């Protein structure tokens, strides 16, 4: 009985895992490398460039998608009040929206395959917020807000062929193609694990070729200060005030002595 239960759980897990679309050619694989795989947020951190190197079978177009864990996002909706003034007019909730979502591709997404195919792999903003999803009418505004902060980006054509294969091997030849591209993560991208997936496209079919994980974590003084602020809030606030008062008084004394010297 216990084995039956375990098998059922395994089947259920398998059912929700991303897997090749129907008709995916057997034995088609790729390779994906993310550099660096681990990013530390310290006081000098100002965002990071994440280099990706990929290898895809000959004749394939490809896209690399980097995203954080999808979650519910509640935003303030802006509207006109009294027919004149723009201000908060309720809230709008989006489901399954990652904080960070970026895509690099070898060609415009529309050229890779039909929307339904791209939707299976969450490629493109229409896939992220489908037309029937709640808040879809504000998709453009959400994307604009996120792109403005550098958290969302679609960089079509930014996944480029590299090395000898770029010049010597034409698409369609047998040798695998090597690709490279760069994600630019803003400093506001939160700490956590990000999934990076390589998806290949050929003949109106999509194939999941490889995946990797990018870890972003707090380090050094940033980690210590977050610990103090989050776990010892009152003492942290008191210390912050004390330091502010000391700095303020010292400056007052300094300026006073300077002003006395001047007389």
């Amino acid at each position: 009985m216990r084995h039956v239960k375990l098998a059922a759980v395994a089947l259920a897990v398998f059912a929700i895992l991303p897997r090749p679309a129907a008709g995916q050619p057997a034995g088609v694989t790729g390779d994906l490398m993310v550099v660096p795989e681990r990013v530390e947020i310290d006081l000098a951190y100002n965002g990071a460039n994440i280099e990706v190197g990929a290898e895809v079978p000959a004749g394939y177009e490809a896209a690399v998608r980097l995203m954080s864990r999808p979650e519910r996002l509640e935003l303030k909706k802006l509207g006109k009040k009294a027919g004149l003034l723009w201000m908060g007019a309720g809230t709008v909730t989006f489901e399954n929206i990652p904080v960070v979502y970026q895509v690099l591709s070898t060609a415009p997404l529309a050229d890779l395959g039909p929307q339904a195919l791209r939707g299976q792999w969450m490629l493109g903003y229409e896939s992220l917020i489908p037309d029937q999803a709640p808040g879809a009418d504000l998709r453009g505004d959400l994307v604009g807000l996120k792109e403005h902060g550098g958290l969302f980006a679609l960089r079509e054509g930014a996944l480029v062929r590299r090395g000898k294969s770029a010049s010597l091997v034409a698409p369609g030849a047998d040798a695998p193609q090597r690709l490279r591209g760069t994600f630019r993560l803003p400093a506001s991208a939160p700490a956590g694990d990000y999934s990076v997936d390589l998806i290949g496209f050929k003949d109106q079919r999509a194939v999941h070729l490889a995946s990797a994980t990018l870890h972003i974590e707090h380090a050094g003084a940033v980690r210590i200060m977050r610990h103090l602020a989050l776990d010892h809030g009152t003492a942290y606030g008191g210390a912050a005030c004390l330091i502010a008062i000391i700095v303020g008084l010292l400056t007052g004394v300094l300026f006073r002595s300077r002003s006395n010297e001047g007389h």
Partner: protein
Amino acid sequence: MHLYLPIAGNSVNVFLMIGLGGLVGFLSGLFGVGGGFLMTPLLMMYGIPATVAAASDSNQIVAASASGCYTHFRAKTIDVRMGVLMLVGGIAGGTLGVQLIKILRRLGEADFAITVVYVLMLGGIGSYMFFESLISLRGRPSKAAAPRSPMYRRMVGALPFKVYFPRSKVTITALMPLLLGTLVGTLAAIMGVGGGFIMVPIMIYLLRMPMHVVVGTSLFQILFTCINVTVLQAHYNHSVDFVLALLLLIGSVVGAQIGIRIGRRLRADQLKILMAVLVLAVMVKMLLGLLLRPEFLVAYKGGH
């Protein structure tokens, strides 16, 4: 040169933040205002979350007002008795305001009501100060300089608990600073600002305090209000970013000293007209923000 802010979760340009702190500290020293009404929106425009911007700004105002208070204390231009009464009223008003805002939000139209009242009040105070100072600068006696109406004098005169405030050279009922402090504290809590720019005109026009004492007393009151806000924000919301506050306060303590020195060289009317221009500029900025269509029709929660 950039520095990562541990609580805000973003990086900022070090020199820009010090410069912003310097500008706001300068205004603080010149007019005796905290500057939160100016700094918080500027930080939000830079991408700092609203709650972190407001809390960290309170922290840096502690430094600027401590620096200003020290200088005013040496110059004997702080009316401590008046300041304490206003502070007590301000804290009571703040508590009342927080409860009031909860009720307003439950009714649904709080944001609309608050914003409209804010703009109207800034416009009213700013315009009155501007024209009154303009008339005074042109050498004509202003309405504010003239004795108050008999009705106002009768009302104030009838109130009990009269106290002489030697530093301000006024005799008024202790209830006045207490009640006005409560009113400002309530408004400040509702609007999410320190209230210095409301308190200063009230001290000038309703409490009849001399301008040089007004600035010092306002800073004295702001110092304690902001200590209270910083500790409460750190305790309940964990939203004080000390790295951000440190950058801002490096600029603001220096700016405050420069502001105080320039303020001493200006006549009271000149100071008042500059303050009026500042209040009107904030009002116009807010009004434009309400009238112009925003770039995106969604915004992160927590902003004003």
